[in-house]
């Protein structure tokens, strides 16, 4: 992100806790990131890494109880989203910030037609009347590549395929020309062919609407094809953040590097054995004192087990939280040095 631009979204020092029977879980700890206007940030991590919790807290959607945002600041343009009353937040959700989720079938109301559900957004947020809403709904369905849009308005979600439902979700998301689109694994449940279509659709719309995107995924292939910048999360913390080219070319955190090495690829031949990362992700209720990745890391030292490394700038726009990362070259970037 170039320093001259005011960020669209600025998250700082975010902490999210969940109270469970097994004790308090720190789902997100000290996470901060910025998204510039028109930029696409990918958040990568496995289940339990806290990536979904981060974006749910942006939208005020952390289920409370058991969850709670215990610290942090989330600014969207000039407004603080965390302190905002639910009524005002609701006006922003779905209009200026839109979201799409992994499972479109459970995000759509099975009892209402597609047309009713798109029109609802337009009527609520833009105060459109029936006829205008209908016209705009047809336009939106065409925009996301659904033919025979007039007929499709009368379809119920179960009458559509998975890819079509996700297109409808995107149409609903785009209804109010949002400045920020938040996508939580939106293509994970879809076939590769449909995934490619949805990703290309999002790219086209991004260009057309100059929209910022936060895209959550565990698929590094999708990241490479879509993101400008990537944030890698592990056990509730950011372990690395970089531009997409820097991350794939010179991953600095052993977890990122290990993931990239262990992926089988269609465009490469691997020997017999994949270089897998050993062990498994830690239990969030019993996190070790030092680095959460220490138990699986090949470069672990005593210091890693004792002290937790902070996220520090390594090069312009490339930060990493690792004691053993190669020494930084001194060009600290204003945006990342304070985290």
């Amino acid at each position, binding site marked *: 992100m170039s320093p001259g631009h005011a960020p669209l979204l600025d998250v700082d020092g975010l902490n999210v806790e969940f109270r469970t029977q097994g004790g308090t879980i720190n789902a997100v700890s000290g996470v901060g990131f910025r998204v510039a206007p028109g930029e696409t940030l990918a958040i990568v991590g496995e289940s339990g890494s806290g990536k979904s919790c981060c974006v749910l807290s942006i939208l005020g959607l952390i289920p409370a109880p058991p969850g709670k945002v215990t610290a942090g600041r989330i600014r969207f343009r000039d407004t603080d989203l965390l302190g905002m009353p639910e009524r005002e937040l609701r006006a922003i959700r779905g209009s200026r910030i839109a979201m799409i989720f992994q499972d479109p079938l459970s995000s759509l109301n099975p009892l209402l037609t597609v047309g009713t559900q798109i029109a609802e957004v337009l009527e609520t947020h833009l105060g459109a009347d029936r006829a205008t809403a209908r016209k705009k709904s047809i336009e939106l369905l065409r925009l996301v590549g659904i033919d025979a849009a007039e007929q499709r308005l009368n379809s119920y979600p179960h009458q559509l395929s998975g890819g079509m439902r996700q297109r409808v979700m995107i149409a609903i998301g785009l209804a109010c020309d949002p400045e920020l689109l938040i996508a939580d694994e939106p293509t994970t449940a879809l076939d*590769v062919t449909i995934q490619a279509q949805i990703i290309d659709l999002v790219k086209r719309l991004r260009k057309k609407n100059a929209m910022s995107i936060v895209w959550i995924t565990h698929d590094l292939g999708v990241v*490479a094809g879509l993101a400008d910048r990537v944030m890698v999360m592990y056990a509730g913390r950011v372990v690395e953040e970089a531009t997409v080219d820097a991350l*794939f070319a010179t991953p600095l955190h052993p977890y990122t590097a290990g993931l990239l090495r262990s992926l089988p690829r269609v465009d490469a031949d691997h020997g017999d054995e994949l270089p897998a990362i050993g062990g498994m992700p830690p239990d969030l209720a019993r996190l070790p004192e030092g680095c959460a990745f220490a138990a699986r890391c090949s470069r672990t030292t005593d210091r890693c087990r004792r002290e937790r490394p902070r996220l520090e700038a390594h090069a312009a726009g490339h930060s990493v939280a690792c004691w053993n990362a190669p020494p930084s070259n001194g060009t600290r970037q204003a945006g990342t040095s304070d985290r």
Partner: protein
Amino acid sequence: MNPLIRVRDLNVHFPVSRGVLFKRTTGVVRAVDRISFEIMRGETLSLVGESGCGKSTLARAILQLERPTSGRVYFGNTELTGLAPAALRQARRYMQMIFQDPYSSLNPRMTVAQIVAEPLLVHGVATGRQSRKRVAGLLQTVGLSPGMMHRYPHEFSGGQRQRIGIARALAVNPDFIVCDEAIAALDVSIQAQIINLLKDLQRQFDLTYLFIAHDLAVVKHLSRRVAAMYAGRIVELADRDRLYDDPQHPYTRLLLSAVPVPDPGARAGRHAESPAADPASVDPALVDPASVDPALVDPALGTVPATGCSFSHRCPLATDRCRRDAPELRPVAEGHEVACFHA
């Protein structure tokens, strides 16, 4: 080479019915449509294709978990399709399955020891102390500590549960294992571990795998041969390298072009569009159901043309002949079969 599984002209059709009170059959869905192929002893053959293409039904029909409408399946010299239930149960000892979801495929009320020992009891292979010893050995084989055998599934992570599922499949010394999306639900950092384990076990126990997956990168790493399925038919079957380097069927090409590559420089640029997103490949029949015989509509399959090649409505190469006649799988080179008039 010696085939372990032979499939001959296999069909699995499901009736489509309408009406609540006066149910009538209005058509059939051909989930598996005239499929013939072989799986060689010790090899991994992978089935790839979109959801609803019939790959799981085909695997279930081979194991006789789904009784085929017609056709034959041989396991070695035994014809499974003709076996009486008791004989089939005996034959099943040599054929096991590993499932996608390690959370729902293990009984939460049984300990790991009971789960892994169950096939030993069912097939009368071992009981009592003998069985406990075997369970301990199996857990070690799949990389779990035998000390964990009295724990319950919820005490394990997804990757560990999948290891338990694999130990259960190995318990009765099978020859043939069907892996149905066995690594799809696992965390990325765990997938490589399980892939390596499956390969190790294959070498160690001379296993034959039928591997069902939608992840074409994983399939490339694991398989010796790959079959692409579309709408109940095998459209291409080839040695791994041939299929990935020189795919002949337009559907296989579409599938491969859609795989995201973890390399920002690999595509013509991440702001470019991939061929799979060509508006022409958006299923026109899905959009206009009136254009197709309603009897052949299956919500999962999408809409398949009533005559000709089932891919013709999505295919950029389709001609009148494709819409009229269905192409049969035919060899185009050594170890490479394609069902396309244009190959």
